[in-house]
């Protein structure tokens, strides 16, 4: 039983990280219908920026905030400069573009900071919360940061004018445009937010998997799985999906198939959900008019 609870907690912890990645993907998907393959590498890059800032003497939280802000600006920049001209391009051009961003950030991080694995500091004390070896402060901290971020995003989207404008742009671009919403900029804001959320995910996971340019590859796949399980058009669903995938991955990994096939499990989940329930658990089925 104790082992089961430990695995459950570990699953929720990684689930929190997958939820962040999934949320970043959903941010971009709802407004543009694009799946951002570079989400993981953008997060990795932001984490390296935080590492570099800590290295020159910033405090952890200072670096954290700066990295999130830089990621936001970076995401905004990518949408404005690279993706805006391709707004009407065919799907293949966009996929190629995302893959290009993925390779570019991966190579750039390797070039600036080398491919050797680096430790990343954690702000949480190495403490056992309940004193029975079940939940560590780090695990609690990761889940807490995710929940706080979710709270902030919910408030932003529900109670601010800007959030309302972003939702309007995502749901019905042409009507929103008629109402005076600058739709194109709302998409850019979505990219900025996605990058910022990704940065948080990267910094949360880096102390566990250690910092290296390829650290997000596997996590991105789980993020995909989470987003799809919850419904890729639904932010709350994506978060729930992230947690579900995290827990399932840990339980299936430790009881059924072993750690070696975890990525294949994610693959099976992605293909399975796409085939059996493409809208996900919480998503809406979209009927397309031809």
């Amino acid at each position, binding site marked *: 039983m104790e082992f089961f609870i430990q695995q459950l907690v570990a699953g929720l912890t990684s689930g929190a990280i997958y939820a962040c990645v999934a949320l970043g993907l959903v941010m971009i998907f709802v407004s543009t219908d694009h799946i951002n393959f570079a989400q993981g590498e953008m997060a990795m890059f932001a984490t390296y920026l935080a590492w570099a800032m800590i290295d020159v003497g910033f405090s952890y939280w200072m670096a954290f905030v700066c990295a999130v802000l830089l990621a936001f600006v970076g995401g905004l920049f990518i949408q404005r400069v690279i993706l805006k001209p*391709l707004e009407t391009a065919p799907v293949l051009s966009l*996929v190629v573009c995302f893959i290009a961003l993925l390779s570019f950030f991966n190579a750039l991080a*390797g070039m600036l900071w080398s491919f050797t694995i680096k430790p990343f500091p954690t702000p949480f004390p190495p403490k056992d919360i309940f004193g029975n070896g079940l939940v560590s402060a780090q695990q609690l901290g990761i889940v807490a940061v995710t929940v706080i971020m979710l709270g902030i995003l919910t408030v932003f989207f529900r109670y601010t004018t800007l959030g309302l404008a972003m939702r309007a742009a995502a749901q019905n671009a042409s009507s929103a445009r008629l109402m005076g919403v600058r739709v194109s900029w709302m998409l850019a804001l979505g990219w900025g937010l996605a990058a910022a959320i990704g940065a948080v995910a990267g910094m949360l996971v880096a102390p566990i998997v250690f910092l290296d340019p390829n650290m997000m590859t596997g996590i991105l796949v789980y993020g995909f799985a989470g987003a799809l399980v919850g419904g890729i058009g639904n932010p709350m669903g994506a978060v729930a999906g992230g947690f579900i995938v995290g827990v399932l991955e840990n339980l299936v990994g430790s009881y059924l198939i072993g750690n*070696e096939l975890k990525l294949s499990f994610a693959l099976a989940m992605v293909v399975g959900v796409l085939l059996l329930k493409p809208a996900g658990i919480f998503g809406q089925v979209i009927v397309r008019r031809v």
Partner: protein
Amino acid sequence: MAAIDNSWATKGGLGWIATTFWVLLAVGPLAGFFTQDPSFEYYMFMGQSMLINTIAILGLNLLIGFNGQISLGHSAFFAIGAYTTAILMNFAGWPYYATIPVAAIICFGAGFLFGFPALKLEGHYLALATFTLAIAVPQLLKYKAIAGWTGGVGGLILDKPDAPEFTRLGTDQYLYYLCLILAMLSFWIVRNMLRGRSGRAMMAIRDHAMAAGTMGIDTAKYKTLTFGVSAGITGVGGALSAITVAYVAPDSFTLQLAVSFLVGLVVGGIASLPGCLVGGAFIVLIQNSSQSISDWMKVTFSLRYDVPAWAIYGILLILLMYFMPRGIMGGIETLWLKLTHRKETQA
């Protein structure tokens, strides 16, 4: 997907250029009989890997360019082809040449089967599913339960075949010709497929799947078949790579391999057969000259760091998507049409 002009596929347009190219490729290695250049063997190896990449890109182009199904996971079929050959040579003692058709058939089967779930996925979703496939492959190949066959993390080491006596060729020259013959065979098959009824069906599905279905084309059949043939051709490339490198290991079949095929495809030209050759040559050139490109960039832009090949790929891909969304061959074609004042039939 935007409509693509198919003139290069269906008409024999600029056929003499392609013929010259093939003749050059066939005559080039004969220089080995006259030259004393010590790096000749190395050039031959580059030629082999160029042709192997060309075959893999041809397979991918059939799927993406002519059928509109986006795959980021062709490294998986390349791996299946390579491992089929390696396992048959290593455990069953088969001669290398007999393993190639088997690799093609197994990859065709794998691709055909993968084509069924792919039927329900479109655009971004198919890209996503194949992307996860590409990431999962190295881990699957390392799986302990099959390590007895695949060699696990260490992979399998093979014997490089020798050239038959009567040809009087060096090993690398001989393997080059093996790759060349198989490349020509693949091109011939693909070209004939595209010129006939099946090719028209494939392209109709790409341009408008629903309209194609209404016209009586069995879209499911053609889509799965295209996936199968595409995987089969890429698998031949994989088999050849196992033979020429004489080594297979899980970490050579990563997402990066799949991305490099995509780079070759996009650079050469989407839905262009000669473009596959350009793409194959491009990949090998960049891989082999990335150090000198990096040095040049360091001097020119006074950078402090080495510029890795993947950063160059990334920038290049984005630039191509802006300026030549159909690659070099597509760009040349557009230019040609402009120069000759012929109107493009499709916008």
